């Protein structure tokens, strides 16, 4: 079931990517309406590519570079997958849903309603059902087309071989090509010689161009993506372009004075059609009216116009198949990768990542989809593992809690990395008062649940006066990212926190700057979270250094 849901989500995502390409192709197609239809036909290659291939190459020349695509593409060398709905969207661990808190999971922006009930989430049921319906739909389409194909096979069984791969048949009224391995042309009996000539030219051109393969293959794609209405439009439009470009080829080959005759024979086939319209594996004639019009209006463009249109098509093809290449490659490392990896960000550039984060800023912590989008953008799942999200919004302080499910081994590194993400979350979710994260951790051979708290007080300890101010603009977000990149994403936490007296903390021990949290860790053992807390925020009046800490009543920590 999980695999199925994942596959379904993948298909939806690829369908959405392809939809943009379809819209672009439809637009260009209208622009070059007067041009030979072969150009429009070729453009559909881009759509096909998008529907088949989940990854693409990057290029500066890409329609996805337009601003209307407010998406962040995680760059991975040159192979990029465009994601709109995260694959883990629908994966829920019901056991993590606690009573008394509003439990929600990541859901795609503004799509399905958020509903969580006691044990099993309604959302999960809905997605499961959707995935199953999708598969049933595919099966139905396949069965239907198989049946109509077999029926057509039976119908032409008595077709009489004429010559080469041409067969005459009583039971059909319109000519068509059928077959995958050995395509055959079927024509009705008693056609006039003239008509035969047109038709055979037309059908042979289909065969030469391998249209008889293109058509069933694109039908398979249609079946796979049947939930997406734009794919239907694309399929129909492509079929039209295919036929029309074939018509044009015949007319230009036989000479332009056959236009009228050719149109007449198109018409005569249309007037008594009883062709099984459902069968995509063979194709006959469609859209007679527009085809006749097209034939009559067709003229060979001047060579330089052809050149220009061909150039446009090539550019559009590349732009539609390529993923965006971001201007600064540095952006790749700009994602908060934690663990003190190199930061190549410079202060004066605002990366797309910062822009994207800025776009995703969210005034209400209660807007779970928006929260989810932020978490997704921050790559929480990739960096820290699976999690569930809890929101406490019934009273202040408003808390966003990320509950990780995987056992954490290197707690320090984990917390340091998460601190950065939490700081960004605090900045970008306007009314979030506190970010919490929890994870299982082994203490003295026992599994313990660690919870870490992160709020504005903590960020002030990082010398950030007003964390909320960093959501004012993309530049400010970038500033925060830079700050975090330099100050927070190496392990040198304590010294950069309180730079004015850093010598006391870093020089006292031989093992480096993380000495303070470790010291307290040792001391407090069971209450390890407090150590992290202390590492970032010493109470007023305390300076960095060595302290003895005891845990008093009510969880108060005493330092001396």
């Amino acid at each position, binding site marked *: 079931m999980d695999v199925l849901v994942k596959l379904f989500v993948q298909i939806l995502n690829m369908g959405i990517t392809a939809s943009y390409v379809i819209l672009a192709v439809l637009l260009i197609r209208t622009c070059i309406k007067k041009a030979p239809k072969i150009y429009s036909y070729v453009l559909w290659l881009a759509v096909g590519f998008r529907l088949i291939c989940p990854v693409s190459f990057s290029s500066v020349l890409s329609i996805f570079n337009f601003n209307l695509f407010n998406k962040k593409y995680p760059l991975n060398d040159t192979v990029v997958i465009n994601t709109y709905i995260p694959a883990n969207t629908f994966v829920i661990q019901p056991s993590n849903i606690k009573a008394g808190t509003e439990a929600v999971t990541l859901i795609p922006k503004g799509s399905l309603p958020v509903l969580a009930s006691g044990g099993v989430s309604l959302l999960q049921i809905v997605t499961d059902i959707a995935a199953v319906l999708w598969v049933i739909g595919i099966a139905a389409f396949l069965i239907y087309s198989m049946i109509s194909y077999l029926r057509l096979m039976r119908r032409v069984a008595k*077709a009489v*071989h004429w010559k080469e791969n041409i067969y005459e048949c009583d039971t059909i009224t319109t000519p068509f090509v059928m077959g995958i391995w050995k395509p055959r042309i079927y024509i009705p009996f008693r056609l006039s010689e003239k008509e035969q000539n047109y038709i055979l030219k037309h059908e042979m051109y289909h065969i030469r161009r391998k249209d008889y393969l293109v058509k069933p293959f694109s039908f398979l794609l249609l079946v796979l993506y049947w939930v997406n209405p734009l794919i239907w439009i694309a399929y129909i439009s492509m079929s039209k372009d295919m036929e029309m470009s074939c018509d044009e080829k015949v007319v230009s080959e036989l000479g332009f004075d056959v236009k009228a005759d050719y149109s007449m024979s198109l018409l005569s086939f249309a007037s008594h059609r009883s062709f099984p319209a459902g069968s995509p594996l063979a194709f006959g004639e469609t859209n007679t009216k527009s085809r006749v019009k097209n034939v009559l209006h067709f003229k060979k463009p001047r060579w330089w116009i052809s050149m220009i249109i061909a150039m446009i098509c090539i550019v559009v093809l590349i732009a539609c198949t390529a993923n965006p290449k971001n201007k600064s490659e540095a952006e790749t490392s700009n994602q908060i990768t934690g663990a003190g990896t190199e930061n190549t960000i410079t202060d004066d550039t605002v990366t797309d990542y910062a822009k994207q984060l800025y776009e995703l800023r969210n005034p209400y912590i209660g807007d779970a989809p928006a929260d989810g989008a932020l978490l997704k953008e921050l790559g929480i799942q990739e960096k820290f593992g699976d999690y569930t999200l809890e929101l406490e919004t019934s009273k202040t302080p408003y808390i966003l809690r990320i509950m990780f499910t995987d056992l954490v081994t290197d707690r320090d590194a984990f917390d340091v990395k998460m601190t950065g993400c939490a700081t960004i979350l605090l900045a970008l979710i306007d009314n979030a008062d506190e970010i919490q994260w929890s994870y299982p951790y082994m203490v003295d051979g026992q599994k313990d649940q660690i919870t870490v708290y992160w709020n504005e007080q903590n960020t002030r300890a990082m010398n950030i006066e007003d964390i909320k101010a960093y959501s004012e603009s993309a530049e400010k977000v970038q500033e925060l990212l830079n700050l975090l990149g330099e100050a927070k994403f190496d392990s040198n936490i304590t010294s950069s926190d309180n730079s004015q007296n850093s010598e006391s903390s870093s020089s006292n021990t031989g093992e480096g700057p993380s000495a303070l949290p470790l010291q307290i860790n040792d001391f407090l053992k069971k209450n390890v979270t407090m150590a992290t807390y202390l590492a970032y925020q010493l109470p007023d009046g305390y300076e960095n250094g060595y302290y003895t800490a005891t845990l008093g009543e009510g969880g108060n920590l005493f330092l001396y």
Partner: protein
Amino acid sequence: MDNLKLCDSDYRFMLIVWENAPVGSGHLVELCLEKLGWKKSTTYTTIKKLCEKGFIMNENAVVTVLIPKEAVQAVETDYFMERTFEGSLPQFIAAFLGSRKISDKEAEEIRRLIDSHKE
């Protein structure tokens, strides 16, 4: 007589039968494959169908003709005349001749044909 009408495929099949009858059904299958591109099953189905219609007979795997070629052609011609020339012979001949000239020999032959058919 109306049930003597054949569709084009069946007519093409019958042409082979008329030419070769009596013919073994196995051999007929080969002939149909060669000349019509038919599968074995298609040929057998057609034999069965035309047996039911009374055109041919299939006994001991030998196919024989029941209705001669001329009878079927006459029906076809009648149908064609009726549909295209409203059954009018002069109209048909006029259309057939068109702007063509016929030789004395041909004219004589036709005259004889007409005389022999006079009531």
